[in-house]
């Protein structure tokens, strides 16, 4: 009993008071694209990018980055001779459309999420999530698990991960979607009662990420059921997920 009180006293309060205003010191997000022009003919960032997330174009929007592919390794920042690409720790990166993850010179970060009135009405007070890892490397899974720990504590917003698809409103999909998991994923989705929606978490789920092009993937599911929310990263910082869901559902923090 005394030991328990001692631990309780030493640990104090650990929760992040307002996730929207948190500062994850040192977090390396996708690179920030400035308006500094590139060196003529330089394509070092495109060359070094492990997931073909960067495209160079003519005109005002010269450098474009697909956050759905970016694994936030920062290799491109180190290569950039002009400083056009620089480090960023912006974690509010979630988007409601796949196209919303395209950033660049013209729009360095995704537009702030608009509250969905329909989702707010249905799930604004209680959102139950079912996690399915389909080839996830256990990093996204650990970060999704961390959402329920004492620091992020999403339970306070009425958001929980549940054990059964029967109890779930949202499917949190991690991993590049393997062929060997395709039928289990479909079974899980079919077992969820409507209304329901998909949240794609991490570069792998969104685009195949580092595994794009592998023969062992089967991503047909996403063609049928487009995600309602895209949470980019490799793995995404838990704050990216929390703020994405809170913003989309119009939940106050």
């Amino acid at each position, binding site marked *: 009993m005394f030991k328990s009180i001692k631990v309780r006293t030493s640990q104090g309060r650990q929760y992040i008071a307002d996730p929207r205003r948190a500062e994850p010191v040192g977090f390396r997000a996708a690179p920030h694209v400035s308006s500094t022009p590139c060196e003529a003919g330089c394509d070092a960032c495109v060359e*070094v990018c492990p997931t073909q997330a960067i495209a160079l174009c003519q005109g005002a929007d010269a450098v474009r980055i697909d956050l759905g592919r970016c694994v936030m390794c920062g290799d491109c920042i*180190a290569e950039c001779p002009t400083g056009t690409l620089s480090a960023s720790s912006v974690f509010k990166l979630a988007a409601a459309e796949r196209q919303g993850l395209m950033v660049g010179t013209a729009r360095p970060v995704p537009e702030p999420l608009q509250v969905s009135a329909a989702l707010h009405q249905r799930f604004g007070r209680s959102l139950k999530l079912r996690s399915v*890892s389909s080839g*996830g490397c256990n*990093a996204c899974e650990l970060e999704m698990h*961390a959402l329920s720990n004492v620091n992020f504590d999403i339970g306070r917003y009425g958001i929980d991960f549940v054990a059964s698809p029967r109890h779930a409103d949202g499917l949190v999909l991690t991993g590049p979607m393997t062929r*060997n998991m395709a039928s289990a994923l479909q079974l899980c989705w079919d077992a969820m009662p409507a209304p329901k929606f998909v949240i794609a978490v991490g570069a792998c789920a969104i685009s195949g990420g580092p*595994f794009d092009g*592998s023969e062992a993937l089967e991503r047909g599911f996403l063609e049928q059921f487009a995600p309602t929310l895209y949470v980019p990263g490799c793995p995404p910082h838990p704050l990216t997920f929390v703020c994405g869901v809170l913003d989309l559902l119009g939940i106050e923090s």
Partner: protein
Amino acid sequence: MATSHPVVLAPVDTLLRHELEPWARLVEQRLEAGNRVVTLFGRLDRSGGVLTTAVVERAEGELEVLRGQAAPQASFASLTPRFPAVQMFERELWEQTGIVPDGHPWLKPVRYEGARQQHMRDHPFFSVRGQEIHEVGVGPIHASVIEPGHFRFMCHGEQVHHLEVQLGYQHRGVEALLLTRPARALAPLVEVIAGDSSVAYGWGYSAAIDALAGTTAGSAADVVAGIALELERVAMHLATLAGLMADVAFLQGGATYGRLRTAIINRTMRICGSRFGRGWLRPGGPRFGLTDHLRNDLKATLAAFSRDMAEVNDLVVSSRTVRARLRGVGVLTRQVALDLGLVGVAARASGVAVDTRVAQPGALYSGRPVVALTEPDGDCWARARLRMREVDESVRWIASVLDEPDLHRPGTNRRVRGAVAPLQPDTVCVSVREGVRGPVVQVLETGGDGRLVHYKVQDPSLVNWFGLALAVRNNDISDFPICNKSFDLSYCGNDL
């Protein structure tokens, strides 16, 4: 005595090519002599034949590479009946190359790759017959937020007679994908083979590329990488302990270990930008060094962490409910651990002192030794206690090297392109790193043009899953979750 190294280079032309059966007998002789088979695998040759490779740890800790050659579909007398330690290797060899280990008692695909994808039901599960025997199937999707895998229990009432672990759901085709990209730019892919062991994988790969390119990252670079690896070990042990406490409904323990893990991985993020150590280690050395500021920050964090850790360990260890739930459950005896060739925590908790950092210390650990800790009892309690002690040992090791000079040298966000020279052609490189679950083994082979012709990945979980299957025998089926969590093996590391 020569120092045994965790990276070994073997030019292909120095390797004798034995015919398949003599090769198998050579491996058998090593096993008879008490040597450990680190890995054993095959690859298709350009001519349509199969090249087999075994890596053996000799008594002195030195790694020996034995190479064999075989015609397609050839067979050899399976070593598994006498030496169960190679059972998974032989299954994988058969699945990947078609070479048949004759007399293997349970020849079944490891992960259903290639043409066998989605054919998991074509192979029967082990079945037990008898009155009142029933089967319970669990997964691939589990109740918690974890990776998928299927577990089939053969039970008599509540008691488990046998568990068959059926994996492969996580198969992403990693080994094939590794050969489609430039050999020196694979780090981001290697780091996600088993993403909770990004540092062990990233470092092992980088060390292999450095060796093949004929460079060394240097002493300070090694120390920084060593620190990264121990931070990863501490973080993952804490994740396991938190899960284990949640599984036995000791919530204060779970909450506290979880929050302590946050402190550690946030410190990792301050150094390298990622809570999982991604992007930290690359060929040519770490991309991020430890400035004085980061060093002091880490020291302060570890000091506070140690106090908190000791306090919560004391709370957990002295809790009767936790002890009662974990003691005597999921026992794996020392003999079984030895027979199965188990590695890492799973082996050490059964009294088998195996640790790459001790057996192949190289320059880094020779001068800065790590203690291979063991527990005698082999139950869930032993695995939990061992993790607590290993956390302390890792923190001690980090603290002991933090004052070394030049740790800032790697700089901040060092460029990686062109950091190392082209790779030495026609060479086999074996690289081993002691990750949180045991040795992460990567074997790279270059062809005549210096490009990779084969990349074998072997996660410690491949052999350890069978240890879990035997540990749950004669336990109640409700003991499975804590047994599983106490081993905390990797699904994607097994499935590749």
